[in-house]
């Protein structure tokens, strides 16, 4: 069983809301990636989204753009990212890892080769930002290798497309909570709630909500109706400028702890 499916089954059984932190691989430091991934798990991460740096991240805001630029400046590439996942897997066989990135590095690497190497390294899913459902044939080799391709739905997604997305969803469906780039601050909880409810009525896969979740309060509000909450830019911003790997791990822990507590308090309350 794919680790993503396994983990969401466990969350459901426990009545818990999943916490999915996003970090850009290689930022703040290439040496510190593996310890950082373990620190995220220690702070309560249920899944991890690991960003593969790309020179032209057209759907990302300044925070993740800059993280990507810093990582690229340190020579981080797809092979290094797969190496870190492999190293993480040596000590953590349970926490699912989803690689998030853009098509061109994979296109150049070769889809089949990437799919084989990623599965072998212990990657569980791939979120390709610039690959909408219409281009699913492009990434067929990734799904054929047993990796889950995580599809996105947005507030602007029309009803007919949403239907198709819900039908195709595997692993989880990532609901982008507003029309914008990563890291923007707008969020209308009521609107997100009604859209997520519509998705959950149609999709068998769980629904994770991201884009604009910044702290314990916004995470808890989302947790009331989502299966998982994704926190990206706010965390990446917090990690930027850490002096060393140890400090980055400490910052990640301090940042995620109140969010984890808020999610768990909600669970306890519901129980």
């Amino acid at each position, binding site marked *: 069983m794919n680790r993503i499916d396994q983990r969401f089954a466990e969350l459901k059984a426990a009545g818990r809301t999943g916490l999915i932190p996003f970090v850009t691989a290689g930022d703040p430091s290439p040496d510190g990636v593996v310890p950082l991934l373990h620190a995220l798990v220690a702070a309560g991460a249920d899944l991890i989204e690991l960003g593969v740096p*790309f*020179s*032209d*991240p*057209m*759907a990302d*805001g*300044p925070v993740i*753009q*800059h993280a990507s*630029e810093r990582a*690229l400046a340190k020579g981080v*590439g*797809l*092979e290094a990212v797969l190496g870190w996942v492999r190293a993480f897997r040596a000590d953590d066989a349970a926490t699912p890892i989803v690689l998030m990135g*853009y*098509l*061109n*590095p*994979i*296109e*150049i*690497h070769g889809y089949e080769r990437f799919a084989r190497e990623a599965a072998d390294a212990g990657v569980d899913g791939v979120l390709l*930002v*610039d*690959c*909408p459902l*219409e*281009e699913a044939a*492009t990434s067929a080799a990734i799904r054929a290798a047993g990796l889950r391709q995580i*599809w*996105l*739905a*947005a507030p*602007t*997604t*029309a009803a007919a*497309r949403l239907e198709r997305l819900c039908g195709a969803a595997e692993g989880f469906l990532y609901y*982008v909570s507003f*029309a*914008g*780039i990563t890291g*923007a601050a707008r969020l209308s909880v009521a609107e997100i709630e009604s859209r997520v409810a519509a998705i959950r009525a149609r999709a068998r896969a769980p629904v994770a909500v991201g884009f604009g979740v910044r702290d314990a309060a916004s995470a808890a509000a989302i947790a009331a109706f989502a299966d998982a909450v994704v926190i990206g830019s706010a965390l990446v911003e917090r990690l930027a400028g850490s002096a060393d790997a140890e400090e980055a791990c400490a910052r990640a822990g301090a940042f995620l702890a109140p969010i984890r507590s808020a999610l768990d308090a909600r669970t306890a309350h519901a129980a």
Partner: protein
Amino acid sequence: MNTDKKQRHVRGAIRVDPRQSVSKIEAMNIEKPIDFHAYPDTHGRFGPYGGVYVAETLMAPLEALTEAYLRLRGDAEFLAELDRDLEHYVGRPSPIYHAERLSAHVGGARILLKREDLNHTGAHKINNTVGQALVARRMGKTRIIAETGAGQHGVASATVAARLGLKCVVYMGAVDMERQAINVYRMKLLGAEVVPVTSGSKTLKDALNEALRDWVTNVADTFYIIGTVAGPHPYPMMVRDFNAVVGREARAQMLAEYGRLPDAITACVGGGSNAIGLFHAFLNDRAVRIVGAEAAGLGLASGHHAASLAAGRPGVLHGNRTYVICDDDGQIAETHSISAGLDYPGVGPEHAFLKDTGRAEYVGVTDDEALQAFHLLARTEGILAALESSHAVAQAIKLAREYPKDAIVLCNLSGRGDKDVHTIAQREGITL
């Protein structure tokens, strides 16, 4: 012109494998020749190129645009309005001009210039912005955004926005803003806001990223006028359609004034909008040789160039699959060209298709060759060409030498060179 060879070369989308038996190759030759005017398909594909490689948040606005444009494309009233604007505002048709002294100097075929430099705002870019602005107005959009490299598309966008009373925001790389200060000021005079882009290499590709981000965030009232035949579907098709007037006119002018089609046609290729504009009407005229001139910068072997087709590889950038210049990890490379308008690491997907099918050739022209052509054209014809267009002139000169005197090489003079006077002076060590 070796017509037979050309015919075989473009027949069928399947590339001939030399290991296959002769009978199989012959069987392939029976296939119907490609109808190049049938592309893209409904999914925006030119063979394996093109498509819609964008984030989910852009799918809805792109679908809305595709639907609106496909409707307007066949709307007689819209097309009549467009024709009126092209005639009375842009100044079309632009003439084809026999550059007699240049031709004599070269000593080969007759070189004809399609004078897009005579358009309002001084380049072919206005053909597209006039068209897209009309689409924007029909869609009820009140805000125009655009990306620009050299500033020509930014000026052309600011121009049409001013004329239609639309708000206009132009994204421009901080490096390009410095290189093209006059065009920045020109856009401001036209009432546009110019936003410096400081991410990545601070050039055209980053301006395009930033414009896409703006569009994702402001889709409700905003229309994104992409300036070249790249980007996600329907842009490569729509921008081509609006520029195809260049080739349609040129083809008719050739028949009317010379009673024949040219032997070869050429244009410079950055993103490729002026080139596809000229090429498109001629694509099914198999006897007409088609050559695109890319920016070879300091030379293709130097690594400092912007020749995506001549020296790049298939990849995905800015919403489409096409040839890109990137490293082995798939990171998009910084490009170099003396002309900011050709300084782009991708290229329109239709050009990628024309390259693979063999219908068009793509070759590199260096900074130095373009500059030589610039000077030669200025001295022999009294025309200051844009540095971008000077690449095409350089290629036309090379082609003219390959043909006899009675042959004709038609070159798209896509823009005028006033904007480049400072760059050229600086390069030649002259203080103005």
